[in-house]
């Protein structure tokens, strides 16, 4: 990677602190310069590629920069959410595997993430904990599983980062068995209009620096994706959501709300 390329890739000073990438990153390099570079067809694809690259770059430091959120209660919420899983489980956006310690010996655990480097950390963590988990690189908006494959599907702090959350949520609904559980922990756009406006402003920064949006209306998106919400626990901007696949077709024509 030339200095010039590096400069183009890191236009934001602060991101340098999170974005240093060891030179042996063959996976990210392969993705950055594929044999036959696929044409980017839409802003959405481009957006998703940026997210992938960002998480590939940040993987080594992700758990460190996420630590303050953990101290502020995210860990407790994740533990509480995951205590509800049943049967065969899929976690989408498994990341560095921070949820792995909370799975209470479920029968069959599968985890996917768009970033290969995040998954490498999840693998190391699973080995450390002695947990069997099947890991795959995959895109939540295009899941490589048949319909009705899992009893429970879990995502924590994922749909703030996905370019097309409604399609992703509809895919989660598709692979979850009828009567199965969809367990989500997400932060959302504040309901208070002033705070909501501030979240819109903050998103301009968080999106660039960390790849997530502070103003996602995830509850609306869940319903737009055709899922049914059974229960929501609200704490500030955090939502612990238990949903299930809907009977009807998702209304995919809807645009994601809140950016």
């Amino acid at each position, binding site marked *: 990677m030339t200095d010039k390329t590096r400069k183009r890739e890191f236009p934001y000073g602060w991101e340098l602190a999170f974005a240093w990438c060891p030179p042996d990153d063959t996976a990210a390099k392969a993705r950055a310069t594929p044999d036959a570079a696929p044409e980017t067809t839409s802003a959405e694809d481009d957006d998703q590629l940026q997210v992938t690259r960002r998480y590939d770059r940040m993987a080594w430091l992700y758990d460190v920069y996420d630590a303050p959120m953990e101290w502020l209660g995210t860990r407790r919420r994740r533990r509480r959410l995951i205590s509800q899983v049943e049967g065969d489980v899929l976690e989408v956006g498994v990341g560095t595997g921070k949820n792995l310690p909370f799975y209470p010996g479920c029968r069959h655990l*599968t985890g996917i993430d768009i970033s290969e480097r995040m998954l490498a950390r999840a693998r190391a963590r699973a080995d450390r904990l002695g947990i069997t988990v099947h890991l795959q*690189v*995959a*895109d939540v908006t295009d899941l*490589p*599983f*048949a319909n009705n494959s899992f009893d429970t599907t879990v995502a924590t702090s994922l749909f703030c980062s996905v370019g097309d959350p409604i399609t992703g949520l509809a895919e989660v609904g598709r692979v979850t068995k009828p009567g199965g559980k969809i367990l989500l922990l997400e932060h959302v756009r504040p309901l208070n209009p002033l705070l909501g406006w501030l979240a819109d402003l903050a998103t301009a920064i968080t999106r660039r620096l960390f790849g997530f949006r502070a103003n996602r209306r995830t509850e609306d998106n869940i319903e737009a994706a055709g899922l049914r919400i059974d229960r929501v626990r609200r704490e500030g901007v955090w939502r612990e959501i238990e949903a299930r696949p809907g009977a009807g077709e998702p209304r995919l024509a809807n645009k994601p709300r809140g950016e």
Partner: protein
Amino acid sequence: MGLDAELLSIMQCPSCGGSLTERTDPHRLVCDVCNLAYPVRDDVPVMLVDEARPDA
């Protein structure tokens, strides 16, 4: 050959929805319908259409 058989049975091609067959040298999953080959690196299948190539 290292992928879990039960998992493989519920997997499908993210491009066309076809079923997948595991092959070696190099380790990959090939779609029975559209013949796209998805690489398996360190026992981790890379199920991204952008990373798949038609199988030789």
